[in-house]
């Protein structure tokens, strides 16, 4: 019991410490590619610290749900992080079917964020909420399709096993399927976390934004919670993707950890590169982008079936 509590706290420590760093690397990469120096990689920490100290202003239209949404969002992603293994740190919570808990806890966070956006009673937030609801339907499809492929290959429906020790064997058996799963999971990572080809996290032109416009009305601690939740979500998706792409397991704990951290940094780098080389899709093209990622995942499923 005590050791479990210890592991849970350790997991949270990694997530809470690592997520802002992950988010900080991406703008730095973008800046370097475009020939600027860019902000420090620790900038998200400063931003969060600043927001934590601020007071907030509430709209008179809003109800308690508006205040509850950031808390539920952050708590949900923190719970999801307990199901995901971080290399040598095994997931404290793992059981048959924990992937469903992952998907539905994220859905819970999304539900509260959407209704908090609708609570403000203005069109901008409603716009973001509507788009978020739409795109998440499509990315959820892809996510589950990939879960199916991974479950088929690992013959297990626990996340820790699906992206765990069986991955090298699966690469041998059905490499193309895993390749496609990784590709479409990367698209899900971009879409769910509102990265560039889908949504632009940097602009403040409300019409083009999804996530940012939903949290337009939040401020202070609430906004910090929201940002933290978004960062952790991205960190979690990356932590799911890295073991699939880098399945090497050495006997050495330190080496494994180095591979994992390197993978995470590499992924942040990749996101940065994608963001600096790609333009944002027109809004009515985003669904095609997501549908292609679904078709890719489906193709992966077919290949996995073919090879088994």
């Amino acid at each position: 019991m005590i050791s479990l509590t210890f592991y849970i706290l350790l997991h949270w420590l990694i997530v809470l410490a690592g997520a802002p760093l992950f988010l900080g690397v991406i703008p730095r990469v973008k800046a370097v590619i475009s020939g600027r120096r860019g902000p420090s990689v620790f900038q998200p920490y400063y931003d969060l610290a600043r927001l934590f100290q601020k007071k907030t202003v509430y709209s008179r239209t809003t109800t308690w749900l508006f205040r509850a949404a950031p808390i539920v969002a952050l708590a949900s992603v923190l719970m999801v992080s307990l199901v995901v293994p971080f290399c040598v740190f095994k997931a404290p919570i793992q059981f048959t079917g924990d992937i469903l808990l992952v998907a539905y806890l994220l859905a819970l966070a999304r539900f509260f964020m959407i209704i908090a956006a609708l609570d403000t009673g203005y069109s901008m937030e409603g716009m973001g909420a509507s788009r978020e609801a739409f795109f998440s339907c499509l990315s959820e499809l892809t996510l589950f399709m990939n879960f199916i492929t991974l479950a088929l290959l690992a013959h297990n429906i626990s996340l820790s096993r699906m992206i765990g020790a069986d991955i090298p064997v699966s690469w041998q058996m059905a490499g193309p399927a895993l390749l496609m799963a990784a590709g479409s999971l990367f698209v899900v990572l971009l879409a769910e976390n509102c990265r560039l080809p889908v949504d632009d996290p940097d602009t403040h032109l409300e019409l083009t934004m999804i996530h940012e416009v939903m949290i337009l009305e939040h401020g202070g601690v609430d906004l910090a919670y929201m940002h933290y939740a978004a960062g952790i979500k991205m960190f979690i998706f990356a932590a799911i993707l890295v073991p699939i792409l880098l399945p090497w397991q050495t006997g050495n704990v330190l080496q494994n950890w180095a591979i994992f951290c390197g993978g995470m940094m590499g992924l942040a780098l990749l996101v940065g590169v994608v963001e600096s080389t790609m333009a944002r899709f027109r809004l009515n093209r985003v669904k095609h982008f997501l549908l292609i990622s679904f078709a890719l995942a489906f193709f992966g499923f077919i290949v996995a079936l073919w090879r088994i």
Partner: protein
Amino acid sequence: MEIIFSKIWQVPFGALSLRLDPLSVLFLTAITILFFCAGIYSMGYLRPYQGKKPLVWHVFCYLFLAMMFGVVVTANNVILFLSAWELMSIATYFLIIFHDETPSVRRAGFLYLMATHCGTFCLFLMFFLMAHTAGSMNFDVMAHASFSPVVAGTIFSLALIGFGVKAGFLPFHIWLPHAHPAAPSHISAVLSGVAIKTGIYGICRVLWIMGVLPEWCGYALLLIGVVSGLMGVLYALGQHELKKLLAYHSIENIGIIAIGLGIGMLGRTYHLAFVSALGFAGALLHVLNHALFKGLLFLGAGSVIQKTHTGDLDRLGGLAKIMPYTSVLFLVGALSICGLPLFNGFISEFVIFYGLFQGLLTLPLQGVFSCGVGIVSLALMGALALACFAKVYGTIFLGKPRRTGDSALFQEKERNRALSPVLREATSKWMIVAMAVLAGLCAWIGLAPRNAVRLTFAGGEYLSRGVLMKEDFEKLMAPLSMIIGTVFIFMAVIAVLVLVRKVLLGKGSMPIQDTWACGFAQVSPKFQYTSSSFARPIVELMKKILMFSRQGGKVVGEFPVQAHMISAVKDASEEGMFRPLYIRFIRLSRKLDERRNKYTQMYLMYIFLFLIFLLIWKLR
């Protein structure tokens, strides 16, 4: 495991034989709870109609319906079952046409009556075939008979149509979105919560009687589930009318239940007792859960409609401030129906998902593929339901009221701001108590599912007709107890985060301002996203299937004055299938009518000839 009560009944082939087995117990539980709560609710809801409507007749029908439901799910004899089934349909009809002064209500009631009789026709055929093959009218004797694959397939198809009409499978669902909104809310709750479940009960009973069914039946049921579920939720997204939307959601949930039953049947066909039990148990648990949360949502909708006199989502808004209790209870219902953790919807969806994944790992190839399709569509249904209920909750309870007519209501709110929530709400306390009981049960199954799951697992085991060990139940309970543990940690985390927020914000009240409108000064509630605009991206993607139509809305000129836009989603199976059929039929009848012989004697002669034919056929 089963108790049979039997008495002689002076009806040919009939026997007053009732049975109590895990299946009946489960449905009886759902019926009792929902009828009880809706009854309590109606004590508040019907008060305004006192003296204006024949309430005694209404109450009689209500209680009679409750009794008939009880008989339907416990009958052990075909004749008894069919009699109760018919009486149930008729009682339901009288309950639906409570507002019989409105023509649309009368039409909806008639449509219901027609649909249910068409269904019953198939049931007559089906039971005839069954009884003929088995040589008995009693279910327990039938269960020991063996059916040839062709007969079994025919019986199953007839059951799918006959019971499918009642349950609301696509495309036989067309009566449902008309009848449910037409009825008063506590009746809608009962209709949606348990009346359509009698269709599911019928299918379960047939599955139980026919121990061995051809392989394709499982796939067919799975497919029907996927189609009904997806189409149900898509239609729901396109609706503007609250109760109609909820009615379409019932179709979605029936689809989820059918997916569970389908995977249970696949497991049974391939002799995988655990998969089978999981599928059936998940479906049955969802039956119970759907009764709870859909009942809750319909009752909540009733409170909203009683308060505002409209169910049009595009006109509502900001009710959370006027109706604090109803808004919280409705939120519980919305979270449950979306299958989000903490509440019961998640538990039953988890069990069905578990069954599907288990099937994915153990079934043969075509089964694996079907399970994959099932999982993906269940996930999509979940995401779409989430979008739909975020829309419903956001547009009814949050934001500002969307029509100017509501400003009177809002002035009342401003006046009541100082008052306690109880006075502000002004909804009858019976109504709140009824909803609170249902919400409490939703949370109870969500947080302590052991008893409910045991009840339904017994039902699943009973249906799967396989031998299961005690470990199998524990194999299901192990992940569930982990989920519950996680949920409790989740609540602890929420508490900690609330505390952190309190500490960081410090003492003193926060400044309250208007919503920041990006610098725009004259903000009107009309700026808000309406339910139609919220759902538009999804509906537009599926516009062909949904028969989405949009009129007007074009802004012209440099200084546009006023523009109106109407968008609507039409039911493809109603518009594309039944209406043309109906028109053809009417045309045919007209033609026949013209040719008809107008002598009464002719008809008497037909009867006479038929009588002679019967006499010769039977007595020769």
